């Protein structure tokens, strides 16, 4: 019996990170998870829109969440930022009835919608560990990956109320998946630290130092590849790693893939890409 969720792909899966959406859909097919699209859902604002107008961000997200409520489903997303932003806005409204009332007033006026706050926001990682269960997940693993893998969570996902049974500062959910799927999880302190992604445009030097520390930390602990549960940080850790290395002098050369890609590969999808990735790990690894 498939489990069903209302699907929010995150902020950049439609544009600069199409592999996230592509592999999320493939992985969920393999895991008997039904993704119900919400074609009217907007970007969550990623905390950026909130810097201009917090109420605006909350109201737009209330609109998206009301769509999931109409479907009677919780929201699933592969994007840590989206999970955190929707969760934070939802909890803020639930804890402040007057805010909820005002938001609903605006929603009613502009869209005819309203939000009760009955849904939950789930990241794909938590769905696998808590909803599907590791045992069930393992039955679907077809291509175990035996490399030394460094999980990266980032600070957005590791928030009270969002992490479920995982530890905010010393998480073990991704490590459990890696270990049970044949890999060796690398435990490094900065795996929950910020890569500085929201400041990549304006505070690039600081962000390069932050991301270089994470990359070199994972690498120095023996990781051959990083698995990122955060789509936006995945982009920075991947695309900017050469620049980060030149800026800091740290050794940052390491493949970074998204958690969805990892799960898709494990469940037997995109075998050619997996082969290319393994080759890359073998060639680039120090």
């Amino acid at each position, binding site marked *: 019996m498939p489990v069903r969720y209302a699907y929010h792909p995150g*902020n*950049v899966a439609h*544009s*600069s*990170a*199409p*592999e996230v959406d592509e592999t999320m859909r493939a992985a969920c097919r393999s895991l008997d998870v039904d993704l119900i699209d919400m074609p*009217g*859902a*907007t970007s969550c*604002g990623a*905390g950026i*829109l909130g*810097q*201009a*107008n*917090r*109420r*605006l961000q909350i*109201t*737009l997200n209330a*609109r998206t969440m009301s769509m999931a409520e109409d479907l009677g489903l919780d929201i699933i997303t592969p994007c840590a930022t989206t999970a955190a932003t929707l969760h*934070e806005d939802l909890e803020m409204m639930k804890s402040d009835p007057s805010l909820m009332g005002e938001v609903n007033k*605006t*929603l009613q006026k*502009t*869209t005819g*919608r309203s939000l009760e706050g009955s849904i939950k926001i789930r990241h794909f990682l938590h769905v696998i560990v808590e909803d599907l269960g590791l045992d069930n997940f393992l039955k679907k693993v077809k291509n175990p990956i035996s490399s030394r893998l460094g999980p990266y969570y980032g*600070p957005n996902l590791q*928030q009270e109320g969002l992490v479920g*049974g*995982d*530890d*905010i*500062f*010393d998480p*073990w959910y991704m490590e459990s998946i890696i270990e049970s799927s044949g890999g060796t999880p690398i435990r490094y*302190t900065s795996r929950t*630290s*910020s890569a*500085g992604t*929201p*400041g990549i*445009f*304006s*505070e690039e*030097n*600081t962000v390069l*130092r*932050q991301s270089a*520390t994470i990359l070199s930390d994972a690498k120095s602990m023996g990781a051959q590849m990083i698995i990122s549960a955060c789509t936006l940080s995945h982009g920075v850790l*991947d*695309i900017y*790693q*050469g*620049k980060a290395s030149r800026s800091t002098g740290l050794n940052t050369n390491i493949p970074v*893939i998204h958690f969805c890609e990892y799960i898709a590969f494990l469940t037997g999808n*995109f075998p050619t890409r997996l082969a*290319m*990735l393994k080759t890359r790990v073998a060639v680039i690894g120090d």
Partner: protein
Amino acid sequence: MVITMSSELPLLILYGSQSGNAEDLCTKAAKEAKSHGLEPIVKGMDEIKISDLSSYNRVLIYCSTWGEGEMPDNAEDLWQQAQGDSLPSLTTCHFAVCSLGDSSYDLFCQSGKDWDQWFEKQGANRLVTRVDCDVDYDKPAALFTSEALSHLSVVDSSGAYDPSKIGEVRSVPETPDEKAIETDQNKDKIAVGGGLEDLLGTGDRTLNIFFGSQSGNSEQLASNFAKRAENYGLKGIVHDMDGFDINAMASMKRVAIICSTWGEGEMPDNAEALWLAASSGSAPKMDGVSFSVLALGDTSYELFCQSGKDWDNKLEELGARRVAARVDCDVDYEAVASEWASEALTMLSAVDDSGNLHEELIDSIRDMADGGAVVADGEDGFSIPDLHGEEVEIQLGVFRYDPHEKTSGLDTWLCSLPGHMTLLEALRSIQRTHDGSLCFTDGAPHDPNTAISVNGRITLPGITRIEQLSNGRPGSIVMKIEPLPGYDVVRDLCVDFSALTKKRQEASVWHVSKTREALRTDQGTLIGPMSAVEATKLHAMSNRFGSQILHSCSDSVAYANSYLGPSVCLDLWIKKSDSRTSDKKIKQIDKILSGPDAILAETDLAPMARQPLAGRGVQNALSEARTSALESNGYNGRHGKHVWWYAWTLKSSGRVNDTVLYRQVLGPLGLLSNLTSGVTARMLTGFTRTGGKMVNDILGLVVPPAGIGKMPKQFNKRVDKHYEVVSIFNTLDRRF
């Protein structure tokens, strides 16, 4: 199982013992039984008649086997009675048997087996399968005891057994009678608590520790134990035996002697003179002295620990009272010496100013030294919940930095610690017993200067218990303890806060009031009015642990030297939000806050939201400060443009368009920089990516209309019912 209030149920614990092992196990079981809400009644088998058994609903038996399957001496008579004709019915009795024996004999554990079968034959209900212990009985017997007590504790007063209640937390007395028992007990505990306070708080609490040392080991131990004495309410003073007057020792209340042996049973050099004085005919009487001796030696010598033995005998001979037995240590002495210290310090602490030994306070002293509180003061008999935690396996990694050698690294200890122990206690313990050079800031539990980072969590170690850090992770707890991030490390876990002080000075966070209306109070004084809403908001923003802690809660601080940090920014924002602040000061604050080194230099607020010592409130306040700064700057600069164009693209299609963001925020020079730095190439070629439509990215950057400032709609399909999005924007914010 945790039972916070006791409602005692009688439990008969019987022992048949030849060498004393079964009796010892009974004593331990009796202690443990109390924590299960049971009232233990310990009896030897020679202290009871067979007919008495019918009056007990719960019976726990420990019985050893003697010779060829024979009952131990003290069980013989009872067993003879058990073979008689008129035996009691035990149908309401529930029992469990632990049998002790030696598997090298043919009839292994026969006596226990006999009792087990006999109870069953009389109709009693066996709650736990009998366990037969060999000569290494400690562990299996302990496991048996725990399990048996769990089951016996759910036999109610009518003899009914309800296994579903095993593990339940009983927090409310079940009957008025039980409540009465509980109240009486609390009275007793309070009396004990008061006695301990009296003992610790009055008179001379000096513990004199003498060392006789040849190689320095005894001296080192004396120094360590003097520090530990504080935990027992004692003031440890270390004395070199060399040059000490034996008459002065006679006037002391508490004496601990740590003495090594040299050569063939000789005193170490520094103890020679004092020993001669103590052995002379003119040595004083020591009637008022309580003492204990730790002897160091080497078993490869014939007269092992002779010096310590001599001191032990001599003090007794002079009339002193031995309160804890001498312990003789071989070359691996640390662990044994530590155990002796625990016992000796406990016993010596129980000696009052008049030299009386208060045996009734010994358990309370142990609890105090272990960090556990027994009972709170107060007339209402309020009891502090049992905070004792299970032992937990820990891999403790502590950051070390030596400024002289300029070396750093991680020292790791594998240890088993009680879950209720605080991190600060664990650090003190390491410093005391393993590495005296470990540097950390000690202080009161809520002192922000003591803060450290544990696996990235900014923590006050004095209020953080070890068991709080396990959080469901399978296996042992792995802790990486590091100094507070964002500061220069002085040594190990100690940091220098002066960088923050300097930033606070630069930002001039001090309050400058404006002249304003005042109200006269009933007392005639003038006060400035403030609305309840504003006061509550200001208090909420100000309600946090120390500035130095908040400064460390940002992940950016350590990487941006000129950034003032969240602590300074929050203080500025609070001042700006305070209606009492002068207009001139607000202008100054605005200038700093909207500058490049204030809140706009923070790359990510999420790390602060998750830190327990900062939290969502801090994040929200700083977010408001950032919005204010962006508005002051008119959404100019890269940060402002990022926010502005993000909102603009979202309104345009419901989705963010990162192509537009890159182009608008970075501008031609930024894009060129990315081209030359490899960022663009990496983005376009998908160098590390495993798929993805690269053509979109290429088109987004180079093909009009992207290049002339219009949003490339070919990349951003509008969301369904996009007009709703526009309507929300237009209702709440028409700027975009």
